[in-house]
C-alpha cells in the first residue's frame, strides 16, 4: 500500500494580497488629520504628494505645525523620520553622510546621514548655503546619494518636507528657480482658525499625540498607492485644459518665465494624486484647478524683478497671476 502524502495546505502570502490604494490613502489621511487640527486641505495635499512620489515645500512662519505634520506622516507610514535643521554652517556631509576610516577593519565605512529616512523634514532650507542646498535637492530628484565612488540608494518611500520662512530676509539664501522646480508642491500652513487654535493649545498633554499614532500602511501599501496614482484616468479634454493654462503662463506679460515641461508634468501628477486622495480613479477639473497654485506658482518667475523683495511678496504676486489665469482659461464642462 502506498502511503498517501498529505496535501500541503494552500499558503497565502500576505504580501500578495491586492492592496486597496484608496482605502490605504484614507487611513493615512485620517491618521494625520487627527494630530494636525483644522488643516484638512494641507494634509490632503501632503498625502497627495506622497502618492505622486513628490516632495513638498512648506512656506510659513515657525510654530504653525509644519513639523507635527511631517512627523505624523512619517509615523502613519510606519517609516523612519529625520529632521535636519538647516543653518548657515551646515555641510553636505551633515545631510548625506560621511565615510569614516575604521581602524579595526582598516577600511572606510559609510555612515549614513539623516537623509536616509522615509520622511525627512528639512527645516528652514533657505538658511544654508547653496552648496548644501543643492546636495539635498540632488538627492531628492535622483533618489540616491553618491559619496566618493559609492552610490547609496535612498529608502523607499522617500519624501522630503522642506520649510522656509517667507518673512526673514537677512542671512538667507533663497532657493534658485531651478531648485524650486524639484518640489512637487508648495504649501502654506497658515494659522489655524480660532477654534482649532484653542483645541491645539488645550490638547497639549504630557504625552506627545504624534507618538500615539500607529502605522496604518506598510511599504506594499505605499507602492500600491503610487501605482494606482499613476493609473488615474485623465480625460483628453482635461489635459487640453491643463495645456492651455501652461501655455498661458508662458505668454503672460506678468511672468518672465512660465511653467516648464517638468512643471507641467508635476502638475499632472499632482492632479492625478488629488483625484486618488478624493477617492476617485479619474481626475476631474477641480483636481487640476486646486493643485494649480501649489504645483505651479513656485515655479514661476515674475517679470520686473523681485530680487530685493521678501519671499512672501513674490509668492503673493505669483499666486495672483495664477488666480487670474485660472479665472480666465475656460474649464472643460
Amino acid at each position, binding site marked *: 500500500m502506498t502511503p498517501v502524502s498529505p496535501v500541503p495546505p494552500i499558503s497565502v502570502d500576505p504580501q500578495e494580497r491586492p492592496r486597496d490604494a484608496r482605502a490605504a490613502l484614507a487611513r493615512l489621511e485620517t491618521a494625520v488629520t487627527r494630530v494636525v487640527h483644522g488643516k484638512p486641505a494641507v494634509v490632503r495635499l501632503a498625502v497627495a504628494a506622497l502618492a505622486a512620489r513628490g516632495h513638498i515645500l512648506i512656506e510659513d512662519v515657525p510654530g504653525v505645525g509644519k513639523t507635527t505634520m511631517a512627523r505624523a506622516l512619517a509615523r502613519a507610514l510606519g517609516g523612519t523620520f529625520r529632521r535636519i535643521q538647516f543653518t548657515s554652517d551646515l555641510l553636505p556631509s551633515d545631510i548625506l553622510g560621511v565615510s569614516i576610516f575604521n581602524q579595526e577593519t582598516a577600511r572606510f565605512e559609510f555612515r549614513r546621514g539623516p537623509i536616509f529616512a522615509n520622511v525627512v523634514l528639512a527645516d528652514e532650507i533657505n538658511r544654508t548655503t547653496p552648496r548644501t542646498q543643492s546636495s539635498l535637492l540632488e538627492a531628492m530628484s535622483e533618489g540616491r546619494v553618491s559619496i566618493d565612488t559609492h552610490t547609496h540608494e535612498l529608502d523607499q518611500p522617500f519624501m522630503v518636507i522642506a520649510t522656509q520662512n517667507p518673512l526673514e530676509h537677512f542671512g538667507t539664501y533663497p532657493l534658485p528657480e531651478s531648485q524650486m522646480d524639484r518640489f512637487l508642491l508648495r504649501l502654506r500652513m497658515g494659522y489655524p482658525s480660532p477654534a482649532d487654535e484653542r483645541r491645539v493649545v488645550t490638547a497639549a498633554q504630557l504625552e506627545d499625540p504624534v507618538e500615539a499614532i500607529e502605522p496604518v500602511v506598510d511599504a506594499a501599501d505605499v507602492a500600491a498607492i503610487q501605482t494606482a496614482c*499613476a493609473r488615474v484616468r485623465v480625460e483628453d479634454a482635461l489635459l487640453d485644459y491643463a495645456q492651455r493654462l501652461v501655455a498661458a503662463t508662458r505668454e503672460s506679460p506678468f511672468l518672465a518665465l512660465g511653467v516648464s515641461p517638468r512643471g507641467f508634468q508635476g502638475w499632472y501628477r499632482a492632479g492625478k494624486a488629488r483625484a486618488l486622495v478624493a477617492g476617485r480613479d479619474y481626475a476631474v477639473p477641480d483636481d487640476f484647478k486646486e493643485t494649480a497654485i501649489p504645483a505651479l506658482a513656485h515655479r514661476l518667475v515674475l517679470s520686473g524683478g523681485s530680487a530685493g523683495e521678501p519671499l512672501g511678496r513674490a509668492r503673493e504676486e505669483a499666486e495672483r497671476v495664477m488666480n487670474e489665469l485660472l479665472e480666465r482659461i*475656460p474649464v472643460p464642462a
Partner: protein
Amino acid sequence: MRFSAIHKATSYLMVLAAFATLALSHELSPPVVIGTFVIALGSYFFEPARHAVLRARGWSTTWNALTLAVFAWTLLEAIRGELLSSGVRFLCFLLVNKLWNRKSSRDYLQAYVVSFLMLVAGAALNNDLAYAGCFLAYVVFATWTLTLFHLRREMEENYLIKHSDDGAERVEVERILNSRRIVGWSFLGATSLVSIGVFICAALTFFLIPRFGFGFFATHSRRGGLTVGFSDRVDLDAYGRVKDNPQVIMRIEFPTGTPPEQPLHLRGVAFDRYEHGRWSRTISDNAQLRSWSGYTFVGHAAIERLSGARVRALLDHAVEQRIYLDPLDTSVLFGAATAIAYQMPQNAVGGPAPVALVTHGSDEPYAMERRYSRNFTTDLVERKNGLRYTVFSDLSGPDPRTLAAAEDVDIDEELAPYIAVPHDLPPRIAELARSITAKKSGPWQKAEAIRDYLQRYKYTLDLKRDERYEPLEDFLFVQRAGHCEYFASAMAVMLRTVGVPTRSVNGFYGGEWNSFGHYLAVRQGDAHSWVEIYIGGHWVTVDPTPPGAAVPVGGAWTTLRQMLDNIELAWFKYVIEYDLGKQVEIARSVGRWAQFASKRDALDRLVRRHAVQVGGGVALIFGAWMLLAAWRRRRVPQVRLRRGAEALSAFHRAVRALERRGFTRTPGETGRELATRVRAASDPGADSFGQLVDLYYAARFGAIPVAAGDLERLAQEVIRAPKLEQHRARAA
C-alpha cells in the same frame, strides 16, 4: 473553453475557410493541397509556449531561409509565366510558415492577412458555388477571430506597455488568457448573428448597386478547367469503355418556360472530310455573318435582303434559346438546328463586345474572345470562359413532301468536298450502300433507307476494335456495334458513295429538363454525333443512331441533382454574371410582386393558397422574437447607459437653468465650484445639482457608465426647482 483556446480555434477555422476556396479551385495540385492542409493542421498541436523547439533560434532561422528559397523559386516560376499558380503556392507556404511560428499576436495578424489574400485569389480562381459557402464561413469566422484578436492584443500589448515595470500585470494577462468566463457560446452566437447580418447587408448592396456589364473590366472574367465529352474532332480509331460524364455544361432557358416538344439537336461543329476514321474540316472560306440591330444572322438570313418586317417574321417563327455555356475546349457556339440568328452579350458602356463572332467555313459561328494586347491592338483568341448568349433557331425544317420529291443535286465546286470519299475506302462499303439504296431515288429516300438499315446495329459505349480493318468497315461488317459517331460516320460516308452530299456534325442531343429552374440542362454525356444531308438547297438533319441509347435516371437522386444544378445556375446568373440587366429584372419582379400583393383579393388568394407556409413563417418569426425577448430579459437590469460626452446634454441644461436663476458660470469655474456656489446661496436646486455634477463627472471624466434616467431626473429637478425668492417666500 479558455480564451486563448477559443482564439486559436477560431483563427484556424478562419484560415481554413480561406484555404478551402483555393483548395476547391483546381488551381492547386492535390499534393500541394493535402500537404498544406496536413502541415498547417499539425501546427495546431504545437505551442511555442510549451514546445521549446519552436522558440529556438535555429527554428526561426530555418524558416526564414526556407522562405527565401521558396520566394526565389516562386519568382522563377513567375518569370516563366505561371504567375498566378506560383503566387498561390507561395501563399500556402506563407500560411504554413506563420502557423508554425505563432509567437506573438503579430504572427496571428500576418496569418490573417495571408488568409485574406487567399480569399481574394480564390475569388479569381474559383467560381463554383462552393466559393459562396467558404466565403460565408470566412465572414463568420473572421468576425469571431478579429474580435478576439483585438481583445487579446489590447490585453497583451497595451496593458504591458502602460505598466511595463509591473511584474504583476504579466500574471494578470496570463490569468485573463486562461479565463473561461470571457467568451462563451453566447459571444460566438451573437457575433455570428452580427456577421450574417453584415453578410446580408453586403448581399443587398451587391444586388442594388448599379454596375457595368459583363466584361467591362476584363474580357476573361471566368476561368474554368477544360472539360471533356464534346470534341471538335472525330477519331473513330479508339476503343475501350467510354465513360458517361454527368457534368452539366450548358443550360438553356426558353421564353415559354416549358421543355421543347422534341429533343433538340444542339449543333456544334460540322466536318466535311473523312479519312480513315477521322473527320476534319477543310473548307475555310468564311460563311456570311450579318449584323442587324443587335442580332447576328447566319445562313440564308445572312445573304437575303433584310428588312424590319422580315427580321420580325424570322424571329417570331424561330425558337428562342437563352444559353449559359460553361467553358469548353472549343469556341464554337451551340444552338438548336437550324440556327438563324445569335444575340451576343453587349458591353453595357458602349465599348466593343467582349466576344466576337467569326465563322470557320461552315454555318457554325465561333465566339472568340477579344484580348487587348499592350500595343492597343485587339487579338481574337480561343475563348476560355463561359458565355451567355441567345440563339434563334428554325426547328421546323423543310416539309416531308418537299424532301421526298427532291432530286439528286448537281455537284458543283462548292459541294464537291461533301461528296468526296477517301480513295482507299474499302470497296465493300460502297457496295453495301449501293445495295441498300438500289431501289431508291432522290437523296431523301436514300438517306431514309440507310438510316433504317443502320437501326439493326447495336448501340454501345463498350468499344472493340479489330485493327486489320478500316474503322468504318470494322463497324459495318465486323463489330456491328458502336456509338453515335460510328453511326453518323457510316451514314455520311455511305451516302456520299451514292452521290448525296453529307457532312458529319458534332453537338449535343436532348438534355434533361430541370423542373425547379425551368431550363434544359445539357450534360457532357449528352454529346452526340449526327448527319446533315444537302437536299434542295438546305442542309437537313438526319440522326441514324438508334433511339433508347440513353438510360434515364429517376427518383430522389435526380430531384436532388436537379435542385443542386438549379442553385448552381442561379449562382452563375445572379452572382458571377450579375449586371444591370439582371438588376432591372430583379427590381421588376419585386415590383410585380408588390403590385400583386397590393391587390387585396390577390393577397387573399395567396394567403389561402399558402395558408400553411404563411402561418408557419409567421409562427417562426414570432417564435424567434420570443426567444430573443427571453434572451434579452435574461440580461440583468436593462438600463440605458450614458458615457462621456453623452452626459453633457443633461449637465448643460441644468447649467442653463441655473443661469436663468442668476448663477452665471464663469469660464474658469468648474461644475463642482458652481455647485458649491449654488449651495452657498442655498438654492433649492443645489442638492440635485451637486448629485448631477458627481454623475456627470463620473461619466465625462471617468468613462463610467451612468444610468441615463438618473441624469435626466436630476437635470429636471434642477430645472423645475422653484426660484430662490419663491422658495424663501414659501418657506416664510
